[in-house]
């Protein structure tokens, strides 16, 4: 198990390293006009060159990459080209927003998704199963941005027109300053993210549950006189959760790295919002930091999934 973990961690580090190289090549080697953007339209070529020199953009690429990695290993990600703020503190102020959004949505979708999937699977082809299948397929086919607009229209605008202003349409309040307002501001974004994802989990859980219910050990459990409830919740669900767990780790990793679309629609100042801003203004240090951080989340999530896998399903535990 230890060996397995060490191997996975090393692989993860390798993957991350390749990603930093790829992102670096994409942004620093591809033609860009950051210096010109920063110096302004009227700037003379001398000024542009001076700006490029100050930012170190005219140094050899390998040199720039070397100092980036050196900084990264010392916890220093450089400074934003525009605000001159350290990138680390810029990220630190955005992470709580994206994390609140991702974790809250994840709880909602897991509960809804797994519960729906289990209910569907216990009575396949019944009325409840068919209804759940149709509804979840609708949500599954719905892009999050479309659901976001719908939610905004129905639960914010329509309710506001009716004089019920319980759901704010945008903005963020930090958890520490006011927990109630925090949840209130996040409910609509949570729903937009969670409902599309819940549909995928309902489908996954249903399929896995049906698979598991056909296994011999379930028949054994039933034969030794356990109640159906106990068989389903204790014996079947445990094994049936493995595909959902895999998916969950990956999804959560992706979400933590910024839920671009939902943050955009609801005006939440998270990582995704910052990323889009920085990409448009070509704020290279910030972009590289966010993409690296987001990839690190995905890699870490994959690692956690592998370990959870072994905990949940005794059959895949390495001997």
């Amino acid at each position, binding site marked *: 198990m230890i060996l397995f973990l060490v191997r996975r961690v090393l*692989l993860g580090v*390798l*993957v*991350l390293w*390749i*990603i930093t190289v*790829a*992102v670096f090549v*994409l*942004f620093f080697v*591809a033609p*860009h006009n950051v210096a010109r953007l920063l110096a302004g339209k009227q700037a003379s070529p001398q000024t542009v060159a001076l700006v490029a020199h100050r930012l170190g953009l005219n140094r050899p690429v390998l040199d720039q990459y070397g100092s980036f990695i050196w900084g990264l290993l010392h916890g220093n990600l450089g400074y934003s080209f525009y605000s001159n703020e350290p990138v680390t503190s810029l990220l630190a102020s955005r992470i709580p927003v994206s994390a609140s959004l991702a974790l809250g949505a994840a709880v909602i979708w897991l509960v809804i998704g797994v519960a729906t999937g289990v209910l569907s699977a216990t009575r*396949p*082809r019944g009325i409840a199963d068919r209804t759940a299948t149709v509804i979840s*397929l*609708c949500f*599954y*086919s*719905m*892009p*999050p*941005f*479309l659901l976001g*607009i*719908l939610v*905004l*229209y129905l639960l914010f*605008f329509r309710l506001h027109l009716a004089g019920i202003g319980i759901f704010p349409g945008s903005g963020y309040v930090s958890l520490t300053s006011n927990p109630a307002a925090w949840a209130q501001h996040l409910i609509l974004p949570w729903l937009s993210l969670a409902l599309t994802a819940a549909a995928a989990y309902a489908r996954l859980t249903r399929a896995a549950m*049906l*698979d598991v*219910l*056909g296994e011999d050990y379930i028949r054994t459990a039933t034969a030794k006189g356990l109640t159906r409830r106990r068989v389903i919740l204790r014996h079947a669900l445990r094994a049936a959760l493995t595909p959902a767990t895999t998916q969950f780790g990956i999804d959560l990793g*992706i979400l933590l*790295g*910024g839920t*671009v*679309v939902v943050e*955009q*629609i609801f005006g939440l100042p998270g990582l*995704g919002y910052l*990323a*889009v801003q920085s*990409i*448009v203004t*070509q704020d290279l240090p910030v*972009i590289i930091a*966010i*993409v690296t951080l*987001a*990839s690190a*989340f*995905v*890699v870490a999530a*994959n690692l956690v999934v592998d370990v959870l896998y072994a905990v949940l399903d005794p059959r895949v535990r390495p001997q």
Partner: protein
Amino acid sequence: MTTTIPIGGAATEVTVAQAIEARSPWQLAWRRIRHDRVALISACYIALIALLAIFAPVIAHIVGHGPDTEYLHTGLTPQGLPRPPSGTFVFGTDDLGRDLFVRTIYGARISLLVGAASSLSAVTVGVAIGLLAGYFGGIVDVVLARLVDVVLSLPFLLAAIALEVVVGPSLLVSIFVIAFFSWAAVARIVRGQTLSIRENEFVEAARSLGASDLRIMVIDVLPNLAAPVIVYTTLLVPSAIVFEATLSFLGLGVVPPTPSWGNMLSESLGFYQVAWWFITFPGLALLTTTLAFNLLGDSVRDALDPRGDRLLAAIRKRR
């Protein structure tokens, strides 16, 4: 071989070959799909959308409205707001007085083109890489599998946005970007399947007959991959359509004024309070199309994977 079997007094000629017909797995799958009402309806709907997309210029000519023409006098209210659906503008108009119906069917061209082109290229690359990695194993596998890991660890929406911004948004770039972030999952599935297929006796037999590696991969291994690849492709198309719509929604992808469902929805975001039709029709078009593809994909999977059937039968018997 022909025999005469008397049925109900009248002699009917039935060939034995017909009476006991051998059916290949493909014929069985085809029969299952033909008897699946949901699959048929979905397929017809997709065909309808495809026809509308192909003949969009003809329909626009019949309606008499161009996709990018701004009908400032007839298409806008005196206050300059979009007009609701009417006899002249079936789906109403947008904020610039353009015909939403014509724009929606033109948008179908973009969605279907991007969906089909990017999924096909993703599947081609994914199958090729997965096949090479799984068949040769060893160092080839290590390198290719790590490459797949890297691509799967990238925060794909962020990376896609970054790519689009660096290269400059266009239809072709969208197709490339979507394909680039989709092939890795196909490669992973194909690699796994190839690993088990290559251990079969028929591969051994082919090799002892002197078949080259290329021949074994194409003639012996590839046909056995057809079922999972077909299923995955039908499910890849809707996700590619959603991906494209998301990119266009964020202002990347297809460049306005060319209509795509994503950029129409993004334009409608500022008008959802006054013009419900502006958001409804492109939204419905997007939702129903992805839904139809997902339903069809599900049916194809059920048809190609008889195991699901047997399982349900077993469960039903037990109850």
